[in-house]
C-alpha cells in the first residue's frame, strides 16, 4: 500500500538506468511529485524548469523532436488547466512523445483545497484527440503503466495520486491499453470505477453482499482508449450501473460510461462523484464522505437506487 506518486518516481528512476533517453522536467515540485527520486539517481537528465508550467510543456515538445522521452512532473491542475493550450497545440495535435506525469490527481491532495484538486482532468484530457488517458488503481498498475507509457510513442496522461492506495493486483499484472478488469462478479448492480476509488468500491460490494445485494466491480484504468465492448459485456444483465470516481460527474468516467451505454446497451446509470462543484481543503475522510465516495456511502446509494425502483432488479 504505497502512494502512486512514489511508485512513479521509483519506476522512472529504474527505467532511467537502461534508457538514456528518459528526461524528467520538473515545475519545482519534485519533492511533492516524487520526481526527486529520479533527480537523485540521474541528475544530468533531470531538468528543473522552474515555476513555469506553460514553458515546461513547450520545452518537452521540443525535446521530444530530438528523440527524447520527456516526462513532466507537476500537479495535475497545472498541467491540464494552466498549460492546457500548450498541451493542446504542441503535444496533442502533433502527437508529440511527451508523458504527462500528473501528480495530485483527484480530490485527496493533502489539505491543499480547490486550487490543487483536479476533478476535471479526465474530462479535459479525454476530449483531446490523440491523448492516452490512464488512471492507475494501485502501485502495481502504476508501475506497469509508467513502463508502458515510456515505451509507447505518443502523448500519455498518467493520473497519479498523493496518498497510499490499497493493492489490487499481483505482480503478474500486465498493462494493456483499453483493457478493463472485472474484480468482482455480481448480478444486481455493477460498480464501475477508476484509480484508487476501485478499492473503495470493492469494500462497498462487501457491505452490499451482507445485506443481500450482489454487486460486481469493474475497474477501468484506461479511460482512453477503452474497450467499450468489454464494458457492455460486464454490465450484462445488471439493471443498475453505478460509476464512481474522484472527479466531476460531468465528462469523466461517468460521462464515458454514459456514452457507451446509450450507444450499445441502455441501462439506468447513476454517476457518483463531485456534483458539478469545487473541492475544498479538508481531511480525506471528510471529502470522501461529503462527495459520497466512501464504501458505506456508495453502498447506501446503491441500496437507495434499488429501493426506489424495485422493478429494475427484475428487468
Amino acid at each position, binding site marked *: 500500500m504505497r502512494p502512486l506518486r512514489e511508485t512513479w518516481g521509483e519506476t522512472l528512476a529504474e527505467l532511467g538506468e537502461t534508457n538514456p533517453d528518459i528526461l524528467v522536467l520538473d515545475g519545482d515540485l519534485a519533492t511533492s511529485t516524487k520526481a526527486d527520486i529520479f533527480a537523485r539517481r540521474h541528475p544530468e537528465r533531470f531538468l528543473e524548469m522552474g515555476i513555469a508550467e506553460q514553458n515546461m510543456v*513547450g520545452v518537452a515538445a521540443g525535446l521530444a523532436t*530530438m528523440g527524447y522521452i520527456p516526462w513532466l512532473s507537476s500537479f495535475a491542475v497545472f498541467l491540464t488547466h494552466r498549460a492546457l493550450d500548450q498541451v493542446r*497545440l504542441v503535444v496533442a495535435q502533433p502527437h508529440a512523445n511527451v508523458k504527462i506525469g500528473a501528480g495530485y490527481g483527484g480530490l485527496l491532495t493533502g489539505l491543499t483545497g480547490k486550487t490543487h484538486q483536479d476533478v476535471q482532468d479526465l474530462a479535459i484530457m479525454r476530449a483531446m484527440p490523440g491523448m492516452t488517458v490512464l488512471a492507475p488503481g494501485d502501485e502495481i498498475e502504476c508501475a506497469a503503466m509508467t513502463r508502458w507509457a515510456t515505451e509507447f510513442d505518443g502523448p500519455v496522461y498518467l493520473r497519479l495520486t498523493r496518498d497510499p492506495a490499497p493493492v489490487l493486483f499481483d505482480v503478474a499484472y500486465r498493462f494493456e491499453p483499453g483493457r478493463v478488469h472485472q474484480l468482482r462478479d455480481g448480478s444486481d448492480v455493477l460498480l464501475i470505477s477508476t484509480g484508487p476509488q476501485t478499492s473503495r468500491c470493492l469494500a462497498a460490494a462487501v457491505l452490499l453482499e451482507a445485506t443481500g445485494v450482489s454487486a460486481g466491480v469493474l475497474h477501468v484504468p484506461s479511460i482512453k482508449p477503452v474497450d467499450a465492448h468489454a464494458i457492455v459485456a460486464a454490465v450484462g444483465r445488471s439493471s443498475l450501473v453505478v460509476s464512481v470516481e474522484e472527479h466531476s460527474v460531468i465528462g469523466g468516467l461517468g460521462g464515458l460510461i454514459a456514452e457507451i451505454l446509450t450507444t450499445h446497451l441502455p441501462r439506468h446509470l447513476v454517476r457518483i462523484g463531485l456534483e458539478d462543484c469545487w473541492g475544498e481543503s479538508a481531511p480525506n475522510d471528510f471529502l470522501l464522505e461529503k462527495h459520497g465516495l466512501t464504501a458505506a456511502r456508495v453502498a447506501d446509494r446503491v441500496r437507495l437506487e434499488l429501493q426506489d425502483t424495485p422493478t429494475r432488479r427484475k428487468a
Partner: protein
Amino acid sequence: MTSEGVTSPHAELEARARLGRWLVMSTVAGSGAGHVGGPLSAMDLLVALYFRVLDVRVEEPAWADRDRFILSKGHSAIGLYAVMAQRGYFPIAELATFDKGDSRLQGHPDMTRLPGLDASTGSLGQGLAVGVGIALGARLRGRDFRTYVMLGDGECQEGMVWESVQVAARYRLGNLIAIVDHNGLQQYGWPLGDEPDARGDRSEPFPGDTLRGIFDGFGWRVLEVDGHDFEAIISACADAGEAAAGSRPTVILARTIKGRGLSFTEGRHAWHARVPTADELEAARLELGIDASGQPE
C-alpha cells in the same frame, strides 16, 4: 538594379522578397482569407533566413543536423509558405491550396502535415518554448546546429514568452536565436484620441520599444537591425550563430514596417488580415514589378 545603375549585392534576395510579397497577396486573394500585414513585414527576414542563413536540406527536410526554424507568430504562415515554396520545399502552385480543405498549407503551421516545419504554431507565445526544448536537446545530444524562433512584438505580450526567456538564459542556450519582427502594430491598431473610432497606425511610442531592456535584463544578448536590410539581417544572424554553446542566447530585434512593400498596406493596421480586392491585387502586382505570368520582372 539600384538607382545608381549598380547591381545590388542582394538583388536575388530582393527579387525573391518581391515575389514572396506577391505570392502572399495573390494567395490570400485566391483563398479569400489569410493575413497580409505580418507576412509582409516578416518577408525580408524570412527570405534572408531561408536563402542565406539556415543550413537546411530541402531534399531531406528531416536531416538531423539541420538548423531549426520556428515561426512562433504562426498567423504569418502564408509568408513562410511563400518563401519555403521558392526554396523548393513544395511547388509554388501548391500555394493555391492554402486554407483549403485537406491542404498541407494550413492557416497556421501544422508540422504533422508539411515536412520542413519544426513546430506547430498559431496560438501566440508558444514557439520559443519549443525552441528552448530543441536547443536544450541539441546540447544534450552534442549536436551543433542553431535554432531560430521568430516572434512578433505583439506576441511578446504573452506571459509565456518570458517563462521561456528565463529558462533559455538559465540553461545558457547560446545555440538559440530569437528574432522579433518588431513592426509596432497589431490587429486593432492603437488609440489616437478619446473618440472610440479614433484608432490608427501610430506605432511610436509603444511599450514594445522596451524589448531591448527586458531581454537584456533577463540575460540575453540583444542585437538590433533594420528588418528590411538584407546585409544587416544576414550579418546579425551570423554574429548570433557564432555564439558558442555555453554562452547567452541572442535576440535580434528587427525593426520592420507592417505591410512592407506596398504603398497602400505599409504601416496600416487595417491590413492585418484583409483580403485584397481585384483592383488592389492588380495594384500590388504593378508595384511589386511582377509580370502577368506571376514572375518578377
